[in-house]
C-alpha cells in the first residue's frame, strides 16, 4: 500500500499520508513533478496516518527543504500530535553554536597548521626528554618526590615479570640466527663458525634489540596505559594541584627501573640466544658442544658486550620516556588511552631503530 498519494489541484500539490508510515525511504520522484507542473503551494495532510516513526519526520523535513529551495508555500494539516513539535525541534540548533562553526581552512593554511603542530610536538617532546634526564641524574644527588614502593613495583614489572618472554624470544632468535647462518656457512664447510656468528650477533646488537622490542611492546605500553588512565581519572591533575612534580612521582621510578633492568635482561637474553644457537649447532649441524663453546668463547669480546649493554641502556631511556610521555599527553576521551599506548610502542621502536643507526655510525667511525 502506498503511504504517500499526490493530487494536483490548480497550483497546489496535495500530499496525503496514510497507513503505517514506518521504516520508509525518502520519496525520490517529487522534484521532477514540481518542475513540470509549476506549482506554488504544497499541502500535506496526515488525517489517514495510523502509526509513524522518524522516517515520517525525515520525509516532512525533505518536503520542507524542497519547498524552501523552490520558494513554495508549505502547509501541514492533521499531523499526529508531536510531529509538528518534533519538526520544529529538528530545525533548531544550540543557540551559542550557530555562529561558532568555522569554515574549513584552505590547503595552505592546513598545511601550515600541520607544520606548526609538528614543530610544537617536537619542542614539547624534547623539553620532556631533557627535563626527565635532568631529574634522573639529579635524583642521585638529592631527594625526590618518589615513593620506594612505586620504584619496586616498576622494577618487578620491568624485570622478573618480563624475564620469561625475554628468554623465550631470545632463545628463538639465537636459534633462527644459527639456522640462517648455517645455510650459508655450510657451503664453505665452515658451519662451526655459526658459534661465532651467534655469539657476536647476540651480544653486540641482537640481544639488546630483541629485549628493546619486547619491552617497548610490554612495558612501554603498560606505562602509557597506566599513566593515561590516571590522566583520564584526573589523578595527574590532582598531583599537579598538590604541587607534586609529575616527573619525579610518575616518570622517575619507571625510568630508573627500566634503565636498571634493561642491561640485566640483555645479558640474560644474550645467553639465551647463544644457547639457542648451541641447540641448533649440536642437534642439527652435528657440531660438538665443546667445539661450539670454544668458538663462542673465542668470538666473545668485551667490546661487543659493552656495545650491547650501551644499546640496552639507551633503549631503556627511550622506552620509558616514550611510554610516560604518551601517557601524560593522553586526553580525556575513551579511545585516547588506546591511542597513547599505540603511540608509545610505535614511537619507542622507531626511536630505538634511529638510535641504533646513530650508535652504529658513531662506533663505526670510532672503529669499535
Amino acid at each position, binding site marked *: 500500500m502506498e503511504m504517500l498519494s499526490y493530487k494536483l489541484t490548480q497550483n497546489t500539490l496535495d500530499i496525503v499520508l496514510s497507513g503505517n508510515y514506518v521504516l520508509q525511504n525518502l520519496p525520490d520522484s517529487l522534484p521532477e513533478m514540481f518542475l513540470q507542473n509549476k506549482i506554488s503551494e504544497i499541502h500535506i495532510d496526515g488525517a489517514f496516518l495510523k502509526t509513524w516513526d522518524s522516517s515520517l519526520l525525515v520525509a516532512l523535513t525533505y518536503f520542507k527543504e524542497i519547498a524552501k529551495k523552490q520558494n513554495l508555500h508549505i502547509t501541514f494539516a492533521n499531523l499526529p500530535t508531536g510531529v509538528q513539535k518534533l519538526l520544529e525541534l529538528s530545525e533548531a540548533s544550540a*543557540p*551559542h553554536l550557530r555562529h561558532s562553526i568555522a569554515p574549513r581552512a584552505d590547503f595552505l593554511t592546513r598545511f601550515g597548521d600541520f607544520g606548526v603542530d609538528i614543530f610544537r610536538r617536537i619542542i614539547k617532546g624534547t623539553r620532556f626528554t631533557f627535563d626527565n634526564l635532568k631529574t634522573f641524574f639529579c635524583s642521585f644527588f638529592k631527594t625526590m*618526590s618518589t615513593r620506594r614502593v*612505586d620504584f619496586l*613495583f616498576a622494577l618487578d614489572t620491568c624485570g622478573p615479570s618480563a624475564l620469561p618472554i625475554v628468554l623465550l624470544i631470545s632463545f628463538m632468535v639465537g636459534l633462527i640466527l644459527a639456522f640462517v647462518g648455517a645455510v650459508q656457512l655450510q657451503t664453505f664447510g665452515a658451519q662451526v663458525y655459526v658459534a661465532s656468528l651467534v655469539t657476536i650477533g647476540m651480544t653486540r646488537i641482537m640481544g639488546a634489540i630483541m629485549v628493546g622490542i619486547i619491552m617497548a611492546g610490554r612495558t612501554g605500553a603498560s606505562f602509557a596505559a597506566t599513566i593515561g*588512565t*590516571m590522566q583520564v*581519572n*584526573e*589523578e595527574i*591533575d*590532582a598531583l*599537579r*594541584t*598538590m*604541587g*607534586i612534580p609529575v616527573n619525579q612521582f610518575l616518570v622517575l621510578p619507571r625510568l630508573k627501573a627500566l634503565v636498571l633492568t634493561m642491561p640485566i635482561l640483555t645479558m640474560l637474553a644474550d645467553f639465551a640466544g647463544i644457547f639457542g644457537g648451541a641447540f641448533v649447532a649440536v642437534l642439527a649441524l652435528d657440531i660438538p658442544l665443546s667445539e661450539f663453546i670454544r668458538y663462542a668463547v673465542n668470538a666473545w669480546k668485551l667490546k661487543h658486550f659493552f656495545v650491547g649493554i650501551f644499546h640496552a641502556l639507551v633503549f631503556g631511556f627511550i622506552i620509558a620516556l616514550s611510554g610516560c610521555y604518551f601517557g601524560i599527553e593522553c586526553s580525556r576521551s575513551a579511545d585516547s588511552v588506546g591511542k597513547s599506548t599505540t603511540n608509545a610502542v610505535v614511537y619507542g621502536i622507531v626511536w630505538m631503530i634511529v638510535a641504533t643507526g646513530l650508535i652504529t655510525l658513531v662506533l663505526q667511525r670510532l672503529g669499535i
Partner: protein
Amino acid sequence: MMTNVIKAKNLSVGYGTNVLLKNADFEVKSGDIFIIMGGSGCGKSTLLKVLTGLVEPLDGSFDLLGADFLQINESERQELCRKTGILYQGGALFSSMTLAENIAMPLTQYSSYSQKTIDELVGLKLALVGLRGYENYYPSEISGGMKKRAGLARALALDPQIVYFDEPSAGLDPVSSARLDELMLEINENLKTTLVVVTHELQSIFAIGTNSIYLDASTKTITAKGNPKELLTNPPNERVAEFLTRGKK
C-alpha cells in the same frame, strides 16, 4: 574585614582561539562559599583549571592569597598550591593506593611529621568526612559518594586555606549530594576554609552558596554576581532568572 583570597582581573580563559570567558573580574573573600555557576560549556571548569594553575589564561591576571599567580616562579606556585586543595568530579584518588596512603601522600611530601603522627592525622581527616575505618580500602572498593568524601579528606590533608570543588554533586544520589553539602558547610564553618565550588546543581547552590558569579555562554562574560538567593529574588537579567528557576522564569 574580610580579605580577598582570590582576585581576578580581566581574566579570559579558553583553549587556543576558542574563548570561553572573557574579561572576568571577581573577588573571593576569605570564608566565602563561592559558587561559579552557569550552563554547560560556559567555561566553569576551565576557569577552575586556570585558578588551580592547570591551564594558563588567555589574558588577564589573578591574585591568589595575595600573590600574582601568573608572575611568580614555579616553586612559589607549588608553595601556593600546597595552601589549596581540590576535589575533582570523580575524587581523583590514586587507584594503586589505599585511602590512608592517598591522604598521607601530601603529608609525607610536605611535612616532617613522624609516621605515627601522619597515621593519626589520616584517621582524623577520614573521621572528618565520615570514613573512619576505611583506611585500608582501595578506591575501587568504595562507592562514588565515598570516593568524593575521601577525595575531600585528601584535599584537606594540609589544612588548606582554599578548597576548590569541581561539580561535587555530579553522579551522586540526592541524599549523598545533600550530605556532601552539609559536610562542605561544616568544613567552612569549623575550619574557616574558603570554598570555591563549580556547579550547576541549583539545590546545592542555594543550600551552601554565600557568594557567586554566573557565567553566560552566549556573551562569554560574567553577567551576575552576588548571593545566589538574592540573585533568585532579584535577577539582574533574564538568563540568570531562567537558570536559577530551571527555565521557568
